[in-house]
């Protein structure tokens, strides 16, 4: 029994060593997900009481959802490649007449046990590392409640492991489903067959380029309005996929490439053949560089363009904002308000029109059953009620329907001071007196007269700006780290794919060697191939991502010159770094081919 267990462990360990590349890809794929998840959990658990952190929490949530979808696709791709590595062995087993029952046992040992072990080991270790990193970084700007740490760590590890195990089950399920009604020999033989020679559905053959072109036109249309830029971004990735996987488009590109220079025959056939063979890989690389420039770059840009003192003075016009149930000493300068709720459950601070006139120093008339709705939040939400004519307000004990006289975005005394003061309603003075219960008082100014107390909340601009700057730098560092890992992920996947395809491409280089290819030409073809397979989609992804992001900024607020130059330089630097990585991969592959041909 002991011997059997030992041999099983040895088998799994040997598999691990053989598939080190898959293991590294796992680690690289899990890290960004695990890192953002831990950061999100830390933000959600520790920042309940802290004002202003909801933004960070929301940002994490969006990034998390985006990464989750993207990285799930990448993980499925890695697991599929892992199955492909094993496919020749399985087809041989069926040729030799293995029983299906025996085969499932082997598949379980080979794929299931190894990938589960690889997945869980990498998930646990990476989650630990990313948790420590996230905690250290978070601790720089906010204090962590120690009691929560272990809980968060175990929840994070649990979620990451669950996602991974689920994906392993899903890919195994897909293999099982597709192999059900097919002959197993054909199934496993076809997995490794060059898909370029597969019969392609006539309908798909013509529909794919049409969808690609229509999607590209739609991208251009969506670019005309900044509100639809995000749809344009999603459609851009979809259009790229359809064009890249369309045989007709590739044939056309490849033919025109060959016509120009017949010497391109050897390298240009790589374009069509490799794009057909690696269409998923190409889309994954495109997607990764698109995420880096569009999503991560977006955060960096918004951080750079929003972090000026001028912006803070617009957002927070007063040094101190004091509010609470306690009566304030200086009654002449304080403004009474009370709380209500809209039908959507939004908390609103209700002020009288006379207070509003005093705050804004301008005359305003409002009759009974009418209201003015002011949102102190984001300027993009210019019409916070989206042209709503009527609004039902819930007071302490009663409810009332009001006609909306106007709604707008306006900063009266400061954005993001408290959730109670984000949305403001202005009503008639008589109505204010009749509805008001539990009145609170608000005061703002540049010299403080009050101290923080049980019934009094004192908000200070200097402290809030410092905290916001800290959080913003924390967020940017996070984004830089995630961006770096996404780039590494792309490199890891290219290396893995090169190794998976090694046996098919080796044939070609072996033949070229026999036919007397020169060292210079061999190097040229190697680099031409990696440039077309890996670097071209990287450049396209980066350029489209950067363009869409800049269009978005151009519409919304405009980009400051220095920020634009910094962002462009950053994109160029990232592309150069990635080219360096692909260069190293090519050198490594050249060495491997040289070794395989017995030239070392």
């Amino acid at each position: 029994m002991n011997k059997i267990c030992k041999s099983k462990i040895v088998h799994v360990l040997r598999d691990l060593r053989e598939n080190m590349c898959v293991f590294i890809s796992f680690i690289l794929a899990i890290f960004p997900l695990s890192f953002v998840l831990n950061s999100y959990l830390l933000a959600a658990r520790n920042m309940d009481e802290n004002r202003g952190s909801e933004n960070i929490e929301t940002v994490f949530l969006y990034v998390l959802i985006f990464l989750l979808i993207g990285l799930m696709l990448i993980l499925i791709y890695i697991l599929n490649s892992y199955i492909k590595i094993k496919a020749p062995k399985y087809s041989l087993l069926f040729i030799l007449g293995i029983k299906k029952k025996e085969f499932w046992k082997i598949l379980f040992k080979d794929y299931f046990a190894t990938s589960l072990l690889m997945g869980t080991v990498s998930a646990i270790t990476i989650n630990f590392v990313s948790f420590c990193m996230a905690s250290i970084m978070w601790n720089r700007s906010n204090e962590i409640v120690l009691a929560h740490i272990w809980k968060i760590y175990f929840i994070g590890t649990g979620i990451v492991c669950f996602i991974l195990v689920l994906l392993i089950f899903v890919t195994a399920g897909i293999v099982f489903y597709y192999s059900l009604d097919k002959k197993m020999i054909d199934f496993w033989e076809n997995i490794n067959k060059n898909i370029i020679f597969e019969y392609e559905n006539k309908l798909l053959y013509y529909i794919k380029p049409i969808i690609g072109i229509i999607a590209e036109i739609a991208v251009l249309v969506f670019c005309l309005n900044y509100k639809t830029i995000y749809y344009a971004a999603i459609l851009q990735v979809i259009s790229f996929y359809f064009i890249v996987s369309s045989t007709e488009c590739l044939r056309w590109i490849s033919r025109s490439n060959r016509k120009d220079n017949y010497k391109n025959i050897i390298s240009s056939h790589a374009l069509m053949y490799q794009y057909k063979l690696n269409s998923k890989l190409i889309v994954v690389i495109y997607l990764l560089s698109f995420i880096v420039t569009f999503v991560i770059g977006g955060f960096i840009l918004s951080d750079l363009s929003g972090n000026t003192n001028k912006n803070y003075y617009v957002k927070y016009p007063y040094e101190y904002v004091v509010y609470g149930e306690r009566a304030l000493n200086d009654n002449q300068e304080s403004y009474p308000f009370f709380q209500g709720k809209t039908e959507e459950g939004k908390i609103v601070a209700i002020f009288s029109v006379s207070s509003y006139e005093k705050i804004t120093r301008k005359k305003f008339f409002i009759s009974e059953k009418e209201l003015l709705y002011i949102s102190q939040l984001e300027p993009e939400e210019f019409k916070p009620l989206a042209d709503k004519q009527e609004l039902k307000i819930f007071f302490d004990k009663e409810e009332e329907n009001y006609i909306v006289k106007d709604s707008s975005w306006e900063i009266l005394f400061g954005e993001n001071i408290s959730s109670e003061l984000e949305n403001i309603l202005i009503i008639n003075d008589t109505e204010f007196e009749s509805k008001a219960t539990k009145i609170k008082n608000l005061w703002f100014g540049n010299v403080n007269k009050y101290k923080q107390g049980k019934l009094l909340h004192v908000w200070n601009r200097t402290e809030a700006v410092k905290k916001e700057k800290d959080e913003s730098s924390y967020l940017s560092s996070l984004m830089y780290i995630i961006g770096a890992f996404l780039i590494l992920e792309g490199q890891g996947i290219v290396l893995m794919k090169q190794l998976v395809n090694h046996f098919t491409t080796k044939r070609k280089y072996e033949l070229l060697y026999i036919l007397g290819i020169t060292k210079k030409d061999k190097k040229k073809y190697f680099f031409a191939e990696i440039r077309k397979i890996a670097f071209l989609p990287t450049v396209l992804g980066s350029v489209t991502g950067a363009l869409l992001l800049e269009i978005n900024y151009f519409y919304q607020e405009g980009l400051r010159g220095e920020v634009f130059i910094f962002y462009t330089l950053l994109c160029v630097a990232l592309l150069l770094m990635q080219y360096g990585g692909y260069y190293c991969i090519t050198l490594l592959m050249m060495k491997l081919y040289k070794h395989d041909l017995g030239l070392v």
Partner: protein
Amino acid sequence: MELYTVSELSKCYENWNIRLRKKNETYVIKNLNLTINENEFICIIGKSGVGKTTLLKMLGGIEKPSGGGVFYRNMELYKCSEVKMEEYRRKEIGFIFQDYKLLDEITVRENILIPQILDGAKREVAENKMDNLVKLLGIKEKKFFYPYELSGGEKQRVAICRALINNPNVILADEPTGNLDSYNTELILKILIQIKKRKKTIILVTHDKEICKYADRVIYL
């Protein structure tokens, strides 16, 4: 006139015996001496594993011997520079394989053009040579087909075109008829004889004694 001189040629493969924990040395060719003249049709025959293909590879400059030397027109192969070896393989040798070794991703025309591209030939010259060869070997109408659309005999004729396009002096054929039926075997052999008439040297490896009757000289390994 002597084209090849092979002296004391040996090839030994080393492998690690895991069970005995020591290095194993297996000699496939040991101290072989041989001369091959220009414009000769030579058949190398022998059982499996005697080193026929290895010898062909060593003559073709793609497998380094463990001992001895191969001289081509008094130039010792494997002792000259890498650039010279590349040139030798590109200009002097034409290879024909049992499994054709055609690239499935490109058309027949493009497969044939590869050696010309590697040699840096001009497009018009290369296309002319290719057109003449496909006409000569009867595969003109298959020019734009992909290799997977051809029969075994047609594939081998494409491989022969590729081997001839750079006008080499020597044709090295490794069991070129091994995968073919009797009709195609005869056709390919007739083509090889035609090639020989153009003052080429043909070295053919086979285990089929029937083929030897076409040869000027038979070498038994």
